[in-house]
């Protein structure tokens, strides 16, 4: 079986994330990493590979700037077999529609039975790329799985919705997305880190994919960001230390003063 895992390189959520003057996400001035939510996708792909008797191959795919290779490397260290990095200046500023277009064209060039994605990227966080990929590739999308099993051609997931917990099935080829409930992602082992150095990573440009540069990027975006404003910091509140029940009383007084009681 051939598995493609889509991983995004994102600014670190615990760093001071910000925007450029042109309202695009600052992807250079802030430390980046493999989106934590995509580690779950890599993990599930590796678990599926481990359970398959045949010579299953896991390819990680990332669309992003030069340093997005770091995300690909990390996935290789975790155990993926090879990497593809699509990088092209014309891609900068792409929205989800353009990103999914580039990803879909890249996936078509890689043998694939199963495409695994994270539930959402930790920066844009739209959670729409997997559904868009399913649409663009013309294969089923089995999304937001918290428990995944693959038997023969059938992929089965458990999906925890608000109103119910559902079981959803589809048959290969398909696009799968997994949640952060699907199981802890493994850490790269020393052996894994060494082995990753020898694993092949191909770099593709838009022309390698036959995608017209004018159809993606900020200029071709389907929507435009008009402004980005930092939220004003909250004004410091009152903090009391509880001593012999004083905390509860102060808390209730506060709630009453605000008419919550």
């Amino acid at each position, binding site marked *: 079986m051939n598995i493609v895992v889509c991983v995004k390189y994102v600014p670190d*959520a615990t760093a001071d994330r*910000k925007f450029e003057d042109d309202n695009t996400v600052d992807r250079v001035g802030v430390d980046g990493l493999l989106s934590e*939510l995509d580690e779950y996708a890599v993990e599930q792909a590796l678990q599926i590979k481990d359970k398959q008797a045949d010579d299953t191959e896991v390819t990680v795919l990332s669309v992003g700037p030069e340093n997005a290779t770091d995300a690909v490397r990390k996935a290789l260290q975790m155990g993926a077999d090879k990497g593809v990095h699509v990088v092209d200046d014309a891609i900068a500023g792409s*929205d989800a*529609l353009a990103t999914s277009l580039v990803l879909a064209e890249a996936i078509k060039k890689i043998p694939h039975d199963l495409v695994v994605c994270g*539930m959402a990227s930790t920066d*844009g*966080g*739209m*959670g*729409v*790329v997997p*559904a*868009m990929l399913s*649409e*663009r590739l*013309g294969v089923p*999308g*089995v*999304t*937001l799985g918290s428990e995944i099993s693959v038997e023969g051609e059938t992929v089965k997931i458990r999906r*925890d*919705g*608000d*109103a*119910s*917990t*559902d*079981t*959803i*099935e589809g*048959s290969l080829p*398909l696009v799968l997305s997994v949640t*952060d409930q699907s199981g802890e992602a493994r850490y790269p082992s020393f052996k894994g880190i060494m082995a990753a150095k020898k694993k092949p990573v191909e770099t593709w440009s838009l022309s390698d994919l036959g995608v017209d540069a004018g159809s993606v990027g900020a200029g071709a975006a*389907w*929507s*435009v*960001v008009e*402004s980005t*404003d*930092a*939220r004003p910091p*909250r004004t410091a*509140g*009152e*903090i*009391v230390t*509880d001593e012999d*029940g004083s*905390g*509860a*009383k*102060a*808390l*209730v007084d*506060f*709630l*009453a003063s605000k008419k*919550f*009681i």
Partner: protein
Amino acid sequence: MSEVLVLVDAVDGKVTKPTLELLTIARRLGEPSAVVIGSADAESLKKYGAAKIYTVEDADTKDYLVAPKAEVLAQLVEKTSPAAVLVVSTGEGKEVAGRLAVKTDSGLITDAVDVADDGTTTQSVFAGNFTVKAKVTKGTPIITVKPNSATPEEAAGDGAEEAFAATVSDAAKGAKITGSEPRKASGRPELTEAAIVVSGGRGTGGNFEPVEAFADSLGAAVGASRAAVDSGWYPHSFQVGQTGKTVSPQLYVANGISGAIQHRAGMQTSKTIVAVNKDEEAPIFELVDFGVVGDLHAVLPAATEQVNQRKG
């Protein structure tokens, strides 16, 4: 005036509050047309301003995931050339919207917290640290709107019902729902709709009783941090944060929660924030209007008793 398509979200036929919010927002952009795939109470759609109600037969959509819904909507977009399509920002809603955007080659904005009458949307990004205004520039604007982004306002609509004969392709039936177990109701207000949310984290040590009792005294919904959910202390559907629910209540009370960026992402825009935490250095205190440094197992039961007394 152009139509604005609103995809109706209903549970057991009952139209959800976020759908009524969409109908209210839709009136700013044009004339709301409710799209009912399955069944929904037409009276409440009318009452909140639906000029038209498109009903689509259930048979081909109910056992499948989102793809058939996107097909139906695409056909309606083709037929009506609407000013916009509005969908509730749930996991499912966003997927329907994403597919629809590809099918109709239209721009998509997700998780809007406001939509102005010229179609400009407001979003809260980077864990609520930034406010972004954006606008769709190509095709039909497709916008998913977070629950609680507007107050539903009544406005009598004609609610003219029109059965829409959509065709669902076999390709859209690739992902099938083979089993479904309804979640049992907690009896408390819906987390994303509640005016007050009382949450517990790792600091509860697994005992949510004081959190629940305090919530009940205030008529609040109960939330949880991911640490509490991952420990198996509270179900995932109550998780607040980046990979859980976003809440923006009048009052948010965080108990035994440190205030990690991913948790803030789900509660930072609450109007009033209160925390009880025994560590005075906990980052949650940077956000609060009022904080108590203390043990939640002592503070909450005493506070619950006093609230109940004051209510008489």
